[in-house]
């Protein structure tokens, strides 16, 4: 550095470094935009644009009879709300949601509280309960198909041991949705257990200790101190569980195809069927818009309720 300045002389050095610093200052101004550009461009193309496109598509007719989107006004929505199957699907989805959300969160919370008491083998249990979460849904669905097989499945054998007649777990329309609920809870409660475990470990220990010294019983301690302190976690868990339950698709497509007689036909499967089996993309878009209106409305309501 010193040597080069001696060779170039003071005047040239100043000019060169001035130019260099102006260049780098210019670059420094643009650089942050260049850094965010790839991520931002991809998010715009694959996340934001589709949102607008979906709404636009829902007002168009796009299917085998009209391969180019043509304006169709509210026709898709009118047809959707007139379809008795759509109402059936909404009802199925509501049942699935109102069962899986409290069951998976409740089970997750109960086990987190239990494992938080330094139970013998707690870490082993934690690993076990989380394993279904990392299992591919296709794998879980295949095992479930085998276990709930009407003739040779393990589930019916266990019923037989209890002296009960066999059940068409996936073939009887009065049981199929319950079976799907059970598998959904089995697959997801471990996630909520971990979320609650993290929250429990972050609770202010002094408050809990004070209550214990005051002689408050465990049950009272839980409901009057722990549960209120966990409120933000329960809010987070509820919103995530809601979104997850509305997305249920994999088990349906692999195990029941929405059957028997549409008993397990849930919203995403209905949209998928219309979009990719009947190739009615405009109609599918309208159903997707309705579905997401519902998800966001319910999530907003839940958030309002938790933060009131």
């Amino acid at each position, binding site marked *: 550095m010193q040597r080069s300045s001696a060779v170039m002389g003071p005047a040239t050095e100043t000019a060169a470094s001035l130019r260099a610093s102006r260049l780098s200052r210019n670059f420094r101004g643009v650089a942050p935009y260049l850094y965010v550009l790839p991520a931002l461009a991809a998010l715009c193309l694959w996340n934001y644009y589709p949102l607008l496109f979906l709404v636009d598509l829902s007002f168009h007719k796009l299917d085998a009879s009209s391969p180019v989107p043509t304006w169709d006004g509210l026709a898709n929505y009118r047809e959707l709300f007139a379809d008795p199957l759509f109402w059936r699907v909404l009802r199925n989805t509501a049942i699935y949601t109102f069962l899986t959300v409290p069951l998976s969160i409740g089970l997750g919370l109960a086990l987190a509280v239990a494992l938080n008491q330094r139970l013998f083998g707690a870490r082993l249990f934690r690993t076990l309960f989380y394993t279904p979460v990392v299992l591919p849904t296709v794998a879980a669905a295949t095992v479930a198909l085998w276990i709930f097989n009407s003739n040779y499945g393990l589930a019916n054998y266990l019923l037989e041991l209890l002296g009960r007649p066999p059940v068409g777990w996936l073939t009887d329309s009065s049981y199929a949705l319950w079976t799907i609920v059970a598998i959904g809870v089995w697959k997801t409660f471990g996630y909520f257990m971990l979320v609650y475990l993290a929250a429990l470990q972050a609770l202010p220990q002094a408050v809990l200790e004070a209550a214990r010294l005051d002689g408050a019983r465990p049950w009272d301690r839980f409901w009057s101190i722990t549960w209120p302190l966990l409120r933000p976690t329960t809010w*987070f868990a509820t919103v995530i569980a809601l979104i997850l339950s509305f997305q249920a698709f994999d088990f349906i497509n692999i195990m029941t195809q929405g059957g028997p007689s549409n008993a397990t036909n849930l919203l995403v499967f209905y949209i998928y069927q219309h979009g990719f089996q009947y190739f009615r993309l405009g109609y599918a878009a309208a159903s997707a818009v309705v579905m997401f209106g519902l998800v966001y409305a319910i999530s907003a309501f839940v958030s309002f309720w938790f933060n009131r």
Partner: protein
Amino acid sequence: MMRASRRAAIYVAVLAVAAVVAMPMYWLVVSAFKPSDEIFTATPRWLPSHLEWQNFVLAWQGAAFGRYFINSVLVVAAILLLQLTTSSLAAFALARRRFAGRGFILLAVIGALIIPIQVTFLANFITLQHFGWLDSYWALIAPFAASAFGTFLLRQSFLAVPEALEDAARLDRCTGLAFLWHFLLPLSRPTVLAFTLVALVAHWNDYFWPLIVTNRDAIRTLPIGLAMFVSQEVTTDWNLLMAATLFVAAPMLVIFFFTQRYFIRSHMHAGLKR
């Protein structure tokens, strides 16, 4: 006394849940090793008479699983590499640079978190059709080039690195991308790993998107391959189906068991921050 009996009751309840959770996984493993004549028995056998390793060979040959496996590895590796690159670059700017529109861009990233694939898949399918990318690796990779979750997570982590360190690094001529590479990323290793593991599991297991955009064996991934194998074979060779299920699930299970302490701790962290 009271306390001991309460603990015992809790323990029994936890064991009961553990039995219900473990049973399907036990049945998966046991069925995968059973010879065919021990699958359809009036009273199920809890253990196979011998381990039928041949099941795995037959299942592997029953469909193009070799191809599916390679495709899964390629697609997931490409997605992770892209997401880590785009997310760390964006997170770097959002956490450590001041520029006009930064707040708005951050908001746009966070907003993208609540747009699930079930909203975007119809439109993205049509976009890919326009690009002529359907039924190609591009269709499996491109829509996941960026990750709002990863960008947000890395930004939080980069924010925690003190400004003084960047000043010190600047004196040593370590600025911009060099600082990101030599300081920010190594210092954020727990977050980088947490995000990588979460994204790895999500994309390895993904069934919905590949189902929509793939239509030929040459680019299908493992979950699709397994689901197709199931739909062809159903009602017959449950031992082969379980063997195939086991080798599709195995990579994630092995990775989970080996990184679990780390994985669980990071995932809890991720869950709280999301």
